[in-house]
């Protein structure tokens, strides 16, 4: 097989003839149609050039398309073709052009349409979420009357995966944030000679804010994304349908264990994270302000009233429920393609963290008169 080549001959009437030889085909490894097109472009533009393809060994669709577009999408008497070439070019002539696929919509209409789609999508999310919460509630009443159907094994598995395995990372993050907070505050407090209030700040912030928020963010990133991806892949591989055909409720077996498991473990994680944040703050206070650890621990119960702990439990429960529900909701909306899986997982984490912070702000306003 020889490579695609061409030579130019001068005809007696002053016009030129381009004679193509060799294999005009992608199979010729050395052929580069971009280069060939560039070399031929001068002749493509000239309406009096003759073309001789009778010496071509092989003409494939790629080469034919290159020539045909160069010729202005038509073949006439100037082109000397072999019969099999004519068949190929006739075939190309029947293909729909790119213009026939033009969207046919103006820019304004298209963007309005997109806005409308977004609007509808919001309601479909809302409906899906309400549906999820509704079916969970029904299942909850069902297991209250049928205690033997409670999926203990799955719940404890989620307890372990979402809670126990998250201990190291929540501890580390809590400890570091505690240190950072204490150093920042120590310098401000010293200006007023109010060193002692570091205990109030670290105690209240650690228990009321840092613990719950850090827990929620880490759980959303760790467990929330994993849940979305897991449910999504199970949808793609029809595992959820397989569960349904066995007469097993997907809400009971798949969603409820996640919601219950993570919700129950969340308050414990909150205390764990808070404890490490306070520990970090305590160390920083000792180093920066010289406040002893014994004194700190002695003063902490006096300035932070126990109702703050109750508040932390409530926050933990709420955030745990929100993160899992949002993760499951997005998991159930995954469509069977890779793009949808990745975008759903991202949306799940972003939506969970945003919601948690919104709800936290509401909590802060509503409970401003409690425990301070």
């Amino acid at each position, binding site marked *: *097989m020889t490579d695609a080549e061409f030579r130019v001959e001068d005809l007696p009437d002053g016009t030129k003839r381009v004679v193509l030889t060799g294999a005009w*085909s*992608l*199979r010729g*490894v050395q052929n*580069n*149609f*971009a280069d060939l097109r560039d070399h031929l472009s001068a002749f493509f533009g000239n309406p009096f050039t003759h073309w001789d393809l009778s010496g071509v060994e092989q003409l*494939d*669709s*790629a080469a034919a*398309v*290159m020539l*045909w*577009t160069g010729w202005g999408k038509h073949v006439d008497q100037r082109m000397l073709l072999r019969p099999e070439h004519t068949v190929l070019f006739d*075939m*190309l002539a*029947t*293909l*729909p*052009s*790119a213009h026939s*696929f033009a969207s046919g919509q103006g820019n304004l209409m298209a963007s309005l349409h997109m806005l409308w789609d977004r609007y509808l999508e919001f309601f479909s999310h809302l409906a899906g979420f309400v549906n999820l919460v509704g079916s969970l509630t029904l299942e909850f009443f069902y297991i209250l009357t049928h205690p033997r159907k409670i999926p203990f094994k799955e719940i404890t598995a989620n307890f372990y995966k979402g809670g126990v395995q998250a201990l190291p990372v929540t501890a580390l993050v809590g400890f570091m944030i505690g240190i950072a907070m204490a150093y920042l505050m120590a310098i401000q407090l010293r200006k007023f000679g109010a060193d002692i209030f570091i205990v109030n700040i670290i105690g209240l912030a650690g228990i009321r804010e840092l613990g719950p928020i850090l827990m929620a963010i880490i759980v959303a990133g760790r467990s929330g994304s994993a849940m979305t991806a897991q449910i999504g892949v199970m949808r793609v591989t029809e595992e959820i349908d397989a569960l349904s055909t066995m007469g097993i409720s997907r809400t009971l077996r798949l969603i409820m264990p996640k919601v219950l498991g993570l919700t129950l473990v969340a308050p414990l994680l909150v205390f764990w994270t808070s404890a490490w944040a306070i520990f970090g703050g305590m160390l920083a206070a000792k180093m920066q302000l010289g406040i002893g650890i014994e004194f700190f621990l002695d003063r902490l119960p006096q300035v932070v009233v126990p109702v703050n702990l109750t508040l932390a439990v409530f926050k933990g429960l709420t955030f745990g429920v929100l993160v899992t529900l949002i993760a499951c909701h997005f998991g159930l909306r995954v*469509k*069977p*393609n*890779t*793009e949808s899986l990745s975008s759903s997982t991202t949306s799940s984490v972003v939506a969970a963290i945003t919601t948690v912070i919104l709800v936290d702000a509401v909590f802060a306003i509503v409970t401003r008169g409690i425990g301070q």
Partner: protein
Amino acid sequence: MSKHGIICEVTGVWTQYGSTVIHRDLNLAIRAGEVTAMVGGSGSGKTTLLRHIIGLTTPSRGEIRLFGVNLAELDRDAARQARNRFGMLFQQGALFSALTVYENIAFPLRELRQFDEEAIHLLVMHKLALVELEPKHAWLLPAQLSGGMVKRVALARALALEPELLVLDEPTAGLDPDRSDKFVQLIKSVRKQLGLTVIFVTHDLDTLVGMTDRVAVLADQHIIASCSLPELANVDHPFAQNFFKGVSERLERTDKWKIEPTH
């Protein structure tokens, strides 16, 4: 390379996973222009051999030369050029699920960086017409296609770069008999139009009888026979005999069997 040369040569190939031997000193030659079927029992290593041939995996021992070269020994650019000379149709289609049918077929063409958008559009439409799909199907996503259409689109993508060798893994698995028959006809017509060499793996006897020139029987960890379907009768091996029984019934029933001249 001559038309009747050897397009793929497998010599002394061993495949071992731990202590499990899948191929033991396996030899096979595939001639250009022929349709070669690989048959064998489940787990006999047909698909593994196919993956060796196209260079997705390398055998534990032995050598595989495709187009006269060993893909594993080539540098990056040369290997890429060699890989553009064959098209592979995976069992599940392996279409990129995030891309439309159009983008799936255009993908290898774009990667070549030799064509502008207009030419790519025409080439995609040409490939769609070749596999008998309509232009409107170009904007569907793989998830919206039926099983038969997935195979057609995957075939169109495999043919996008005008390969000389087409490799098919279970081309008709998962299709109903009618669709499967149509797909076999389609492959035959495409093969005639483009002058392809075809290697395929199949379990389906109808597919086999429908399109094969030569059958390579994989049993006892090596190729026990590589011959035309009627010649299978002379192979003295229980699997081959059993297999031939099924084949000969179909040969008689359909009378489709004619040895087509390869050129």
